């Protein structure tokens, strides 16, 4: 992403070098389009290119630990359906090639970018950082549970 200064890229590299321990797989669900290309509603994707730049920024900060899988949902609709990804851009974070259960729908900027970096680091370290009480409570969940958190960049 050209708007991210080199200094920030370097900071991210330095941080990931010390913090990341295990592999992280990012899956970017996308479709062709950009903010610079006007397409009929429902066809284009205003933020997909930026999301791709952001995902590549993360991968390039630690290419030995982070892999990036790009799924174009116009070419692989079945994969998007199977993974339960209805919208693009979506970035899923996981420790392996399985479908990530940590997802960012839309371009994660501002506080969401910080949360994305936090997610990458926690997945890499397999460190949820929750209390024993919370873990015991979570063990009571026996059905798939979706937690959607709406946020804005500021």
């Amino acid at each position, binding site marked *: 992403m050209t708007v991210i200064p080199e200094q920030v890229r370097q900071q991210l590299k330095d941080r990931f070098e010390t913090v990341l321990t295990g592999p992280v797989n990012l899956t970017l669900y996308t479709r062709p389009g950009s903010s610079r290309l006007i397409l009929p509603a429902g066809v284009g994707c205003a933020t997909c290119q930026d999301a791709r730049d952001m995902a590549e920024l993360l991968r390039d900060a630690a290419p030995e630990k982070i892999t990036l899988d790009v799924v174009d949902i116009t070419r692989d609709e079945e994969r998007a359906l199977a993974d339960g990804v209805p919208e693009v851009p979506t970035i899923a974070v996981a420790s392996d090639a399985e479908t990530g259960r940590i997802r960012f729908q839309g371009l994660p900027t501002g506080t969401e970018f910080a949360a994305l970096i936090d*997610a990458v680091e926690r997945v890499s370290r397999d460190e949820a950082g929750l209390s024993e009480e919370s873990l015991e409570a*979570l063990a009571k969940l026996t059905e798939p*549970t979706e*937690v959607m*958190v709406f946020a804005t960049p500021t």
Partner: protein
Amino acid sequence: MSLANRMALASPQVRAVCVEANEFPYLSNQFRVRGVPHTVINRKAAFVGALPEPDFVAAVLEGAGVPVEEPHEAPSGPTTEIAAS
């Protein structure tokens, strides 16, 4: 949203989806998002505001229909049922 992500990391049952509210206005309208963070559980229950970890976990369990004891204070933003639309 960090707590939701951490819950997804801790439990294979949890899927955390952080939604950029401005980018998906139809979702923001569907779930009547007026302020952020706005958390929606299984598209049925919701609460607004950043809760401390024990309250957040309790609210998610409550929203998911799991009976919870009351080891902590009740969530400051009570979970509300979302009317069918």
